């Protein structure tokens, strides 16, 4: 396409656009209770649907199938089985750990859903689906899911 004003170049320009944000995330009453039990009592809690009886970990306020409000808390042993995992070997900003590290889905005993977390104290080449796991808590806990340092193989 021909353009007039030939003295001004048509060279394509790209501009760098910086977006900065600082969002707040509320965990709400349900999330707060879950995180406080981890922080204060080293306990992992589930929540039970009054309609279908499923136990959810992490907890949520409404059952995803029944839309029933849930308020019955269930104490879990913390032990569970690995249902899937991967080993992260790439680096990018905002990763919570230095690679390589393993994380997986852990199905807690007495719960119906899996929870994602890191795997530790384990040879990355010897992780197996179905292996038994238990949580290792941090010494300094601040009310975060990362107060659980990782899950380790349980005897």
């Amino acid at each position, binding site marked *: 396409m021909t353009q007039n*004003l030939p003295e001004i170049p*048509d060279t394509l*320009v790209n501009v760098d656009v910086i977006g900065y944000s600082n969002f707040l995330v509320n965990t709400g009453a349900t999330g707060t209770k879950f995180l406080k039990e981890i922080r204060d009592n080293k306990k992992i809690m589930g929540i039970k649907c009054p309609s279908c009886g499923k136990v959810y970990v992490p907890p949520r306020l409404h059952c995803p199938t029944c839309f029933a409000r849930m308020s019955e808390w269930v104490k879990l042993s913390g032990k569970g089985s690995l249902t899937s995992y991967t080993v992260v070997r790439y680096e990018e900003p905002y990763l919570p750990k230095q690679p390589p590290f393993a994380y997986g889905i852990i199905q807690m005993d007495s719960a119906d859903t899996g929870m994602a977390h890191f795997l530790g104290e384990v040879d990355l080449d010897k992780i197996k689906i179905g292996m038994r796991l238990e949580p290792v808590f941090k010494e300094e806990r601040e009310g975060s899911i990362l107060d659980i340092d990782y899950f380790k193989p349980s005897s």
Partner: protein
Amino acid sequence: MTTEQKQDPEFIQFRYPRDVTYHHALGYQSKFANGLKQGRILATKCPVDGRCTIPPRIVCPMHHVRQTEWVDQGQRGRLISAFKINFPMFNSRTGELQTWENPIIAVELEGGARMDGWCMETDTSKLKTGMLLEAVWRPEEERQGRADDIMYWKPIEE
């Protein structure tokens, strides 16, 4: 069951600061940015009604025709509107709260297009819609092809 949850004195909250850099292509509008580097303000002109617009566009938003003609809008314009920010505002480029002394104005250029700019006069009571303004540019070596290459619009006598 629609009652809200009982208020707990402590609710756990997180913050997550992020900054992300995107590389946006100006495409057809690149000529506008290149013009600013030379101290000129360019707009596209609609072949149907002759209206010049900034931001320039490859297609007229009203008539859906290609706008191949670029028009130099001159160095002067008239004030359409002005406002001054009286509160510290979040700067999305830095993440800091910032205050600004100069009013932000909309200017109708001699060529008919309109654009935003900073006003050199900081006293808003001295601003009148329709008053004549002239572009004050940054030194050529500091220009980046952005609208703030025009440092200020300076009120001038008729």
